[in-house]
């Protein structure tokens, strides 16, 4: 297994990862919908395997301000996971969740960030839950950390994790609609050994 790279994973198991992404993002949106007490529609998520240099461009440029929620993954598999939304989408979510108590403009306040962290926690939790159900592996998220910064800077964190064993990054873009369109991105970053575990658990031969 030690010579496995993400390129090989892609060739053989792209569809599997895509399916996991679809189901995970679907579950995440259901959880979000329950949290917001309203209907949330979503498009079929796009699973993309990108060169490091391309990642920033697809999110509206490396300097696009985004909110990133990052957490560790423990249990039968290890790694980390990230959820990112555009600043504007995050503001909308915060306003919705605090039932308009916080203004939509201006600086992110402590309470808003805390609410956003909770959103991230719930939807990544739902995402990981579906992965756990599919694979029958125990998967636990660690408490999340949040940052508001440039897309490129936030993405450097998962990119570096991917960089340890490849030259590409796998991300899932899920567009969802509430009253306005929200763009969210999921990035699941299993450690190298965990890829094999996920594939084995799904009954697939390991590369």
């Amino acid at each position: 297994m030690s010579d496995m790279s993400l390129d090989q994973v892609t060739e053989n198991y792209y569809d599997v990862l895509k399916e996991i992404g679809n189901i995970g993002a679907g579950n995440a949106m259901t959880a979000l919908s329950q949290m917001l007490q309203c209907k949330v529609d979503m498009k079929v998520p796009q699973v993309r395997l990108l060169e490091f240099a391309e990642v920033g461009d697809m999110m509206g440029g490396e300097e696009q301000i985004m909110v990133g929620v990052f957490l560790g993954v423990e249990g039968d598999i290890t790694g980390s996971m990230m959820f990112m939304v555009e600043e504007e989408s995050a503001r909308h979510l915060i306003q919705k969740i605090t039932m308009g108590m916080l203004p939509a403009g201006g600086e992110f306040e402590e309470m808003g960030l805390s609410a956003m962290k909770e959103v991230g926690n719930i939807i990544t939790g739902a995402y990981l839950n579906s992965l756990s159900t599919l694979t029958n592996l125990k998967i636990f998220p660690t408490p999340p950390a949040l940052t508001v910064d440039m897309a490129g800077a936030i993405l450097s964190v998962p990119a570096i994790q991917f960089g340890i064993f490849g030259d590409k990054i796998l991300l899932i873009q899920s567009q969802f609609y509430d009253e306005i369109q929200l763009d969210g991105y999921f990035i699941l970053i299993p450690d190298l050994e965990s890829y094999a575990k996920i594939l084995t658990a799904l009954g697939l031969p390991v590369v």
Partner: protein
Amino acid sequence: MSEMIKVGMADLKTCVSPDSVITLGLGSCVGIAIRDPLTKIGGLAHIMLPDSTAMINGCQNIAKFADTGITELVRQMEKLGASRFRMVAKIAGGATMFAFEGNSSTVGQVGNRNVEASKAKLKELKIPLLAQDTGANYGRTVVFYPETGEFHIRAVGKSESII
């Protein structure tokens, strides 16, 4: 007309004054700017990881690592006519983007390790480090002008600084 040449993540580029080099949204990665003040040849490397020798799969992209990336940048600058003995460097980046309580995992430490590895490589190549803006918990966009050696640093909610 001067041009601003863009350097991506895990990428490196050289330029000659009046052109400049820019990289957007450095997080835990480190931007290493090197310049030969006489020929005004400059370059910028955007590295992601400290050490190519610790890698599992060898390395396909040498610009990804501090050690191989800096070596390659210097080589390309020399090819353009710069002299290693005149080269000076400035670095920025290496932030810890997410703070975890009591967590000293690879995720939390990689920014610092990138900074340390970059400095070590520069020292090995005997290229003096003139200034640095590293660490902390925010992303940086950096522009390097080989004409003056100015390294401009922008961050969200902060005014531009020049080192």
